[in-house]
């Protein structure tokens, strides 16, 4: 019987193409709009919200490494004049100085990146300081190896070590994008230099926030498209709850519910039918939108087991909301709660959960609050999975989602009117 109710619910949804388009199409469009809009916002540096505190540690000594490199050229028997000429031009190839002064110190970047040069000995302190978004460490011999790679094509390009604060969401993304950009530009600059083409200080180009991601040496950075793919999906799946709630209340309003009851179907079978519809359709919704994100925006999931676990838990939580909305609207014989949820609560929860911008980065309290919304907990888990975390690291979010679902179902069951309580 429950299966019949779910099946019919699905049929009703399918008969409503506009509804489906809104549920599935809207997040896909929003992902595109927001991920480009966010890129633009950060490029013009207009957002005071985005503030990245960056610690910068040099384990080596750039000047000494340059001298060592030049000395080596001499040992290899390079002509004296050539070396002298290189000495004057090497300024433009000193990678660490370029990064510090021309890139991180440039006017655009300075507006949102606060650069702190620190000693290696201070590192432990900084790890504990949650206000830092990321730590960039220049390993020993980085300059030397970079020059070897750039000038002599020896070895491979050395990498910077970047450690990110996982509690911050958008900051690490910015740092990663900047560094990727930097390494690409450095290679390009060296290429131009070698070929005798003059070039000015390295410029950050328009494509900086293309959302493309590369793996640096640590966890995966999150691109803006990934961020918004997750943000919009977890927000939009909440509308499944209100859609199911609306259908269920319509069944009461047009007395179809009465017919179901008269068929000796218990109201609890109906109740479970609503819960299962909400859960199942949410699950399918999440898979469809993430499927699109994968195909269209290239959002890939490194750990599918974690992904499905979070998706299932979030779907159950949304199913819980669906049955809660249904029960309350039945109790008060009014659709108001469902409309209020779809019109206002979803937006509030989306903002709090970080769907539009990483609101949690600004305060630990808001972050904690955001993680107490099902969409926020889902979003945090999804982002952690994208960064490379495993199921153990997200287990507390999953537990919250399940508890949230149970609480919703229990409250719904208590408020669902018994016979005769309402007509």
């Amino acid at each position, binding site marked *: *019987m429950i299966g*019949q109710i779910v099946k*019919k619910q699905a*049929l*009703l949804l399918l*008969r*409503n193409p506009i509804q489906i388009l809104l549920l599935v199409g809207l997040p896909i469009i929003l992902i595109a709009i927001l991920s480009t809009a966010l890129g633009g916002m950060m490029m013009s540096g207009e957002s005071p919200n985005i503030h990245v505190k960056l610690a910068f540690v040099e384990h080596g000594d750039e000047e000494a490494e340059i001298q060592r490199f030049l000395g080596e050229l001499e040992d290899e028997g390079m002509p004296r004049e050539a070396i002298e000429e290189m000495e004057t031009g090497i300024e433009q190839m000193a990678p660490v100085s370029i990064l510090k002064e021309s890139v991180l110190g440039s006017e655009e970047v300075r507006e949102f990146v606060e650069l702190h040069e620190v000693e290696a000995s201070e590192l432990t302190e900084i790890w504990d300081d949650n206000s830092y978004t990321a730590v960039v460490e220049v390993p020993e011999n980085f300059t030397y190896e970079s020059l070897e790679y750039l000038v002599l094509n020896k070895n491979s390009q050395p990498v910077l070590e970047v450690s990110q604060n996982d509690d911050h969401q958008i900051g690490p993304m910015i740092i990663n994008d900047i560094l990727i950009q930097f390494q690409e530009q450095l290679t390009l600059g060296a290429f131009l230099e070698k070929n005798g083409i003059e070039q000015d200080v390295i410029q950050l180009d328009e494509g900086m926030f293309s959302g493309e991601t590369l793996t640096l040496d640590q966890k995966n950075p999150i691109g803006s498209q990934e961020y918004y793919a997750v943000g919009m999906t977890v927000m939009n799946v909440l509308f499944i709850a209100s859609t199911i709630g609306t259908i269920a209340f319509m069944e009461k309003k*047009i*007395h*179809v519910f*009465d*017919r*179901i*009851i*008269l*068929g*000796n*179907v218990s109201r609890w079978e109906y109740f479970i039918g609503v819960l299962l519809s909400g859960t199942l359709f949410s699950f399918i919704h999440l898979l469809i939108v993430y499927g699109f994100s994968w195909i269209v925006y290239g959002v890939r999931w490194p750990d599918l087991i974690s992904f499905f676990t979070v998706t299932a838990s979030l779907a159950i939580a949304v199913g819980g909301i669906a049955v809660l909305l249904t029960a309350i609207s039945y109790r008060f014989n009014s659709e108001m709660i469902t409309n209020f949820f779809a019109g206002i609560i979803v937006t509030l929860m989306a903002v709090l959960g970080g769907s539009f911008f990483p609101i949690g980065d600004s305060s630990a309290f808001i972050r904690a609050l955001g993680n107490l919304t099902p969409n926020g907990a889902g979003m945090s888990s999804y982002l952690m999975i994208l960064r490379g975390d495993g199921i153990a690291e997200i287990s507390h979010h999953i537990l919250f989602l399940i508890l949230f679902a149970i609480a919703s179902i229990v409250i719904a069951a208590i408020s669902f009117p018994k*016979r*005769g309580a309402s*007509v």
Partner: protein
Amino acid sequence: MLELVDLSKKFKQNDAVKNLNMFIEKGEIIGLLGPNGAGKSTAISMLSSLIEPTKGDVRFRNKSMIKHPAPLRNVIGVVPQEIALYEDLTAEENMQFFGKIYRLRGIQLKKKIDEVLEQIGLTDRRKDIVKTFSGGMKRRLNIGVAMLHDPEIIIMDEPTVGIDPQSRNYILETVKRLNKEKQMTVLYTSHYMEEVEFLCDRIYIMDKGNLIASGTKDEIKRILSAEKTISIQADRWNDEFIEELKQNPTVNRVTVGEKEITIIIPREVNMFAAIIKMAENADVELNSVDVQTPTLEDVFLHLTGRALRD
């Protein structure tokens, strides 16, 4: 077979139904007549176990159905006053869903759907979305859905509200036929007295939550047994004639219309000759003089002082 005992329902301060007593025997068509707000739908909701009565009992085969209504639910088909159908689904999909709610499956369900569609005359529209149906077709499907599980008793709450006369006749004929051919017991609720008069063997009349009359059609009309109504028709009147009617001691009431005068006189009096004489004297050319059988409308008017339809 089915019995309501002192059934009452109070919504806050509002007595929707007060001490309703009623019985229904197998094979009968029972009419429940009353103006809007009389309490008919509330009575039906209690009878069909959708709401719990404030007081009283619903008894089916001598067992109370208030706490455990399952046996009653299995044998009744309820046609709600509202169109309780999924507008976005087809006629057939609606029937499939509700049939499955009644635990019909497979071939049995399919055969039943075919049969009911035939009965309600919607076979050729089975694949159409209900939204596209006319009011009359929706009403017919609304009835059909309640018949899928072969109920012994069908309870219809104003099944003809807001539809064209043709669909209405179709529904009335269908109800009559089902009763005749399948001995289906029917409780038919309406505020149209002519429907109830056409269909029903026994009638209950409700007003403002109270049962104000009950019995067979003849029994109820005998409430008006002391008087009868005579309709006098002519193209024009004169004052002399009207005055003479009013002065006549046996005439209780005179109502003058443009081409018709109705008078109410004691049942046992015969006035034909007298009226014709009066007309001759006053030089009025009569078209006809008829004795009218009282209608349920007249009964209602007599009992409440109000017309059935406001």
